[in-house]
């Protein structure tokens, strides 16, 4: 294919603006719209390349599309997809609540809470999530029984750890406790982004430190917190594929891998898994868009032109740097890796 030959007609294809109508009041601006010939050329090239790739992929035997179609709504796959969704939602809910608690503790005037929160972050950010998940899997080996009672007294209740917690719950605990450390840093940055005058005003009204946090500071920090937490949710969706370390093997990725091993067709099954992951991610992005709108209430409302359409909103919600200079860093891990 020779893209060069296409540039001529592409540049000329821009519709010329029809700016002939005028009005009696004031001189209407009859400007010729700025043209972007290079941009159009590139767009055409990219579209052609994409078409070529899709056409090629559709016919390539390795992708084995009939196999993809066969498995994409397979009962075992959709079950596993549901498990992955559950892992994501449960661990994320716990992580957000715990993360807020940790962030608030870190910023509280109480030095005991401060150090506790710091220590938690040190441990859970300082070790890989895979190692942590393995550890949770070994919990029943390390602590065979869970005793409820007082020290030096026979326990009231004594539960074998293996009975108390199944692998699914251990996986959720493992993911949630790790994620909470990152959420805590996002929340802390969000809280610090709120003007100090807000806390002062609340305090001067007689509100307690806790009331000020819950009613004034945290709601305002949400605007800053939600975009990176949205990223974390999407990241979590994919991190669930590590729960095999627990070992929990009923999540989307592990199940796809297991099926592909018995069917000897790895590629179509990974395509199936990718389709599900992408579908979930898209749904999560829509949810994030509406959450962001909800928490933008009253803020930035002075600019009435800030009416984002659903389409552009979807494109920009995740990880797009906003024009707000007070924004905290989007990557709380600080190393740009997952």
């Amino acid at each position: 294919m020779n893209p060069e030959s296409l540039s001529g007609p592409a540049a000329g294809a821009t519709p010329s603006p029809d700016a002939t109508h005028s009005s009696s009041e004031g001189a209407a601006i009859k400007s010729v719209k700025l043209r972007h010939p290079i941009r159009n050329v590139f767009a055409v090239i990219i579209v052609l390349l994409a078409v070529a790739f899709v056409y090629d992929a559709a016919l390539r035997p390795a992708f084995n599309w009939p196999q993809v179609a066969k498995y994409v709504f397979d009962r075992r796959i959709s079950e596993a997809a549901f498990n992955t969704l559950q892992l994501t939602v449960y661990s994320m809910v716990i992580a957000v609540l715990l993360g807020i608690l940790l962030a608030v503790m870190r910023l509280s005037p109480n030095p005991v809470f401060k150090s506790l929160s710091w220590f938690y972050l040190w441990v859970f950010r300082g070790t890989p999530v895979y190692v942590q998940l393995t550890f949770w899997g070994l919990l029943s080996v390390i602590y065979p029984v869970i005793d409820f009672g007082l020290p030096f007294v026979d326990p009231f209740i004594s539960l074998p750890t293996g009975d108390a917690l199944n692998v699914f719950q251990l996986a959720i605990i493992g993911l949630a406790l790790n994620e909470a450390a990152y959420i805590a840093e996002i929340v802390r940055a969000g809280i610090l982004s709120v003007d100090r005058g807000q806390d002062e005003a609340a305090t001067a009204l007689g509100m307690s430190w806790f009331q000020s946090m819950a009613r004034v500071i945290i709601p305002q920090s949400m605007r800053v917190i939600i975009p990176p937490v949205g990223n974390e949710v999407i990241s979590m969706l994919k991190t669930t594929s590590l729960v095999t370390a627990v070992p929990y093997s009923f999540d989307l990725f592990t199940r796809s891998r297991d099926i592909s091993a018995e069917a000897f067709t790895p590629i179509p099954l990974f395509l199936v898994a990718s389709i599900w992951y992408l579908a979930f991610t898209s749904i999560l992005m829509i949810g994030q868009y509406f959450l962001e709108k909800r928490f933008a209430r009253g803020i930035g409302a002075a600019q009435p032109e800030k009416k984002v359409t659903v389409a552009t909103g979807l494109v920009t919600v995740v990880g797009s740097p906003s024009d707000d200079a007070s924004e905290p860093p989007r990557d709380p891990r600080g190393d740009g890796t997952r």
Partner: protein
Amino acid sequence: MNDTPMVEADRVSKSFGSNQVLRSISLTVKRGEVMCLVGPSGSGKSTFLRCINHLESVDAGRLRVDGALVGYRERGDKLHELKPQEAALQRRDIGMVFQRFNLFPHMTALENIIEAPLRVKRMSRAKAIERATDLLAQVGLDDKAASYPAHLSGGQQQRVAIARALAMDPKLMLFDEPTSALDPELVGEVLDVMKQLAKEGMTMIVVTHEMGFAREVADSLVFMDGGVVVESGVPREVLANPQHGRTQSFLSKVL
């Protein structure tokens, strides 16, 4: 008639690290009195106001509001720090208005006003809304109840902030340069609300550069510089005939 002074500062001092911001400030504000506090930037006016409602704590001297020591309890000859809840209890009787309004941007004007009565005083919602509506009318903003602060002009925001402070039925109002962040044409509407408040007998301490307001409304004027009270008295006299050199040079700049 209760004649305990509303605010009584007795040789109050305050330092930030090695920077002594207040040096042995002594002054008295009687009930119903309006005191204007003026002075150059950095002279400690804001710090003094913030000490009065215990946003800062004083290092030395005694500061009393309505007879009660601010932030401490006196037992014998020892001072005991108040618990945060007790300090909050003291603060809710003292309204504060800030230079930059500090309205809660995620709440409408009405929600801003009812927040503290609901949470702090545990007032019923219906009663809080009724009171807030009255207050909004009092500051001339009955039609703005549902507006978010971002949709209000600076003057309107400051009037909502005053209504918010009044909703707690304070016995003392502190104003820290309430009109300094406003466009000149909006200053009047805020000063009018404050004048009305003074007329109704509210005890007020106002940090301001509006000498017209001081002359017309205030009962006393205190000039601070470098953390000390340089001069104080009846506004008309201090403004017309400042005794101290520093007062003279400051006034010549702002008048």
